[in-house]
């Protein structure tokens, strides 16, 4: 039975893909049909994912794969395949569930849009690609779906094509991820070159299996780091995170789906998937590649958390919070807490999607107003949104007991504390937790508390079709914590392949209380600071330089623009200049030389040779004229000439002999 499931695994991405092609062929008018197809496709995918999830529960460490040849070049064959293991199964369920909620939400959110059908086509195309990434058993197939996910994100970010900023954001997103993908591509090539196959699990000879790993030797770290570049690009890690905040130009459901739950998670998933590469030759769990991952994660988390504090736009705050959370996940993976990282990924997927959809309904309510400083006091006007948004905020900031975020964060902090090389990440992560709580409370106060400012004047509650997904997600965010608590770490064990055991006593962890204290401190500080919410941000009043520095995203964009992009544009203009004038100049130079040489020979020919020949002919002509004068026409002259001629000959003969 298990093999049959894996045989049909490809159906999961195929159904949404088919749905997207069908929708593409529909015209803009058939809106209902488009939405229907999309949601149906998603529901089927969810059911199939659950179907696939069920067998993985029976046996711990469950892994089933199925490979087939894609094409043969020369005598070699390129094989790809699908794999089903706890990591994939869990991700499948999360993606399909979250996508379904977002699809339903966007029916309402995008109702007013003209290209409604095209939006749903792109969305189902995106989910299909994301599902493909998750179940791929070959790094190549993964890369293919990875790129398609990038394409989908480009299309979705740039959905409102008429807005130049959206188009620029889409281009920026695609290019930045593309930079990461280039590294990833090199990693693939290297891996393929060294291990001879790109299949993860191929009955022992796969790249991630013992035989394949052994053949890698020292290059494993480099391959791992290159693959991490791809992950960093996609998940918005430190150097390549600039595209994510700009990606907020896209419609909110897009942000919710892509930039909260799924796509950005792909990077983390990738690192988790190829973890054996990272941990190859680990000395008590530490390898150079992993340390790099940790430090990148730490930096990303801190920077984005700080920047989030100074952002006026409701969605940008959430974006930076996502970046920070992703940094946190990377740190957890880096320090060895793979399961912890994935658990936080899942939890984050739910409540971040919830928060984004909440902000979506807020924006919808305030008639496309995104600046929190112009909102306020929406608590009364949009109660359901406020309530679900509050749950999301609490989960995110890690309030323990009822909220998923807390447990996963606590697991990560626990893992970071175990990390041998240095304790600094651990302390920084603690600071991160405080900052998260701080900027979330700032946002809550600005949006929902305090007096209503301009945009919020006549805000109105969103229609039920948008409310339902919010509620579902809120339930998930809370319910999910059930499986997360240390008492019954079902998910942790499931992921790490052990049998889950119920042990209530573990519930109480010293780290838990410490974390609780930190969160409380964060929220309290937030309330203290932003009590008198006003146009001008309190920090701005106290530390204007710092605030402006943070508000402008630490001038990173400008830095990139002036340095890397600047050089690149310069290189482009230079090569064009070279092309137009230097190489072309050379050619023209040869042409000139040729003409010069031609001119030289022409003049030599005319003056030198011709003149000489003319003179010679002149002499002969003169001689000719003289002789012809002798032709007097008199017969006797001729006769005498003959006679004289004969005499001369005779004389000559006589003289010679």
């Amino acid at each position, binding site marked *: 039975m298990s093999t049959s499931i894996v045989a049909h695994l490809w159906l999961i991405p195929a159904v949404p893909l088919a749905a997207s092609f069908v929708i593409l062929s529909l015209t803009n008018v058939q809106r209902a049909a488009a939405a229907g197809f999309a949601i149906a496709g998603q529901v089927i995918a969810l059911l199939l994912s659950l179907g696939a999830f069920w067998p993985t529960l029976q046996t711990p460490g469950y892994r089933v794969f199925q490979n087939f040849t894609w094409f043969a070049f020369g005598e070699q064959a390129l094989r790809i395949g699908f794999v089903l293991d706890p990591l994939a199964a869990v991700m499948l369920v999360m993606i399909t569930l979250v996508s379904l909620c977002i699809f339903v939400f966007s029916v309402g959110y995008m109702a007013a849009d003209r290209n409604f059908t095209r939006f749903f086509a792109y969305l189902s195309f995106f989910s299909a690609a994301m599902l493909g990434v998750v179940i791929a058993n070959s790094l190549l197939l993964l890369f293919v779906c990875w790129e398609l996910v990038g394409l989908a994100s480009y299309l979705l970010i740039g959905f409102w094509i008429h807005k130049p900023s959206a188009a620029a954001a889409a281009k920026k997103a695609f290019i930045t991820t593309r930079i990461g993908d280039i590294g990833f591509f090199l990693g693939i090539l290297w891996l393929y070159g060294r291990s001879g196959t790109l299949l993860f699990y191929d009955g022992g000879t796969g790249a991630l299996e013992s035989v394949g790993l052994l053949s890698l030797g020292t290059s494993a770290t480099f391959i791992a780091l290159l693959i991490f570049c791809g992950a960093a690009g996609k998940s918005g890690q430190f150097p390549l995170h600039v595209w994510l905040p700009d990606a907020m130009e896209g419609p909110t459901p897009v942000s919710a789906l892509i930039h909260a739950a799924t796509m950005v998670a792909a990077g983390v998933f990738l690192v988790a998937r190829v973890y054996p590469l990272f941990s190859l030759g680990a000395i008590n769990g530490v390898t150079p590649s992993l340390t790099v991952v940790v430090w990148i994660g730490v930096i990303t988390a801190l920077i984005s958390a700080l920047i989030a504090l100074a952002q006026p736009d409701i969605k940008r705050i959430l974006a930076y919070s996502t970046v920070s959370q992703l940094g946190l996940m990377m740190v957890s993976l880096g320090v060895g807490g793979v399961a912890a990282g994935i658990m936080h990924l899942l939890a984050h997927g739910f409540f971040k999607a919830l928060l984004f959809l909440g902000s979506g309904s807020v924006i919808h309510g305030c008639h496309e107003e995104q600046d929190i400083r112009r909102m306020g006091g929406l608590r009364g006007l949009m109660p359901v949104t406020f309530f679900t948004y509050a749950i999301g905020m609490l989960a995110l900031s890690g309030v323990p007991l009822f909220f998923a975020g807390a447990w996963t964060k606590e697991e990560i902090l626990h893992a970071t504390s175990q990390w041998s090389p240095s304790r600094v990440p651990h302390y920084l992560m603690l600071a991160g937790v405080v900052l998260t709580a701080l900027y979330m409370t700032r946002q809550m106060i600005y949006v929902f508390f305090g007096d209503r400012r301009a945009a919020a004047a006549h805000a109105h509650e969103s229609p039920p079709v948008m409310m339902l997904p919010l509620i579902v997600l809120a339930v998930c965010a809370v319910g999910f914590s059930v499986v997360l608590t240390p008492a019954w770490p079902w998910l942790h064990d499931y992921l790490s392949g052990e049998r889950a055991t119920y042990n209530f006593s573990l519930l109480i962890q010293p780290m838990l209380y410490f974390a609780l204290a930190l969160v409380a401190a964060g929220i309290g500080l937030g309330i203290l600071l932003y009590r008198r919410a006003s146009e001008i941000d309190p920090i701005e009043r106290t530390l204007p330089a710092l605030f402006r520095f943070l508000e402008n995203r630490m001038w990173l964009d400008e830095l990139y623009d002036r340095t890397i992009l600047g050089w690149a544009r310069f290189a482009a203009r230079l090569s064009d200049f070279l092309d137009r004038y230097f190489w072309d100049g050379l050619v023209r130079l040869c042409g000139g030389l040729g003409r010069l040489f031609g001119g030289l020979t022409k003049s030599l020919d005319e003056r030198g040779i011709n003149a000489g020949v003319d003179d010679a002919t002149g002499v002969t002509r003169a001689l000719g004229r003289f002789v*012809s004068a*002798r*032709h007097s*026409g008199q*017969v006797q002259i001729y*006769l*005498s000439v003959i*006679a004289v001629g004969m005499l001369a000959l005779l004389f000559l003969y006589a003289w010679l002999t």
Partner: protein
Amino acid sequence: MMTPTLPTFLMISAALFCIGLLAALSRRHAIFILIGIEMMLAAAGLNFIAFWRFGPQPAPPIGVMVTIFAIAIAAAEAAVGLALVIAVYRHYRTTDVDQVDQLKG
């Protein structure tokens, strides 16, 4: 007188030839030139016969043949030459060779 030997005949034919040449060169009248030419041809014929006569005897009559043909050709030449002279005379009303130099180079 000495019996006639080959050199004497040759001398006579040479003399005849030169007289012909003299006539052809020095006289202005066209017909004199023709007479000169005929004389030269006759001298040549005489030469041939002399050589035939004094050559190794059983030789085939080559000299004779040549002379006969020479005479025939001389006759043809004389006919055409005289016809020319007449035509020239009719056209230019003169037979003075010097004046007829239309073909001047």
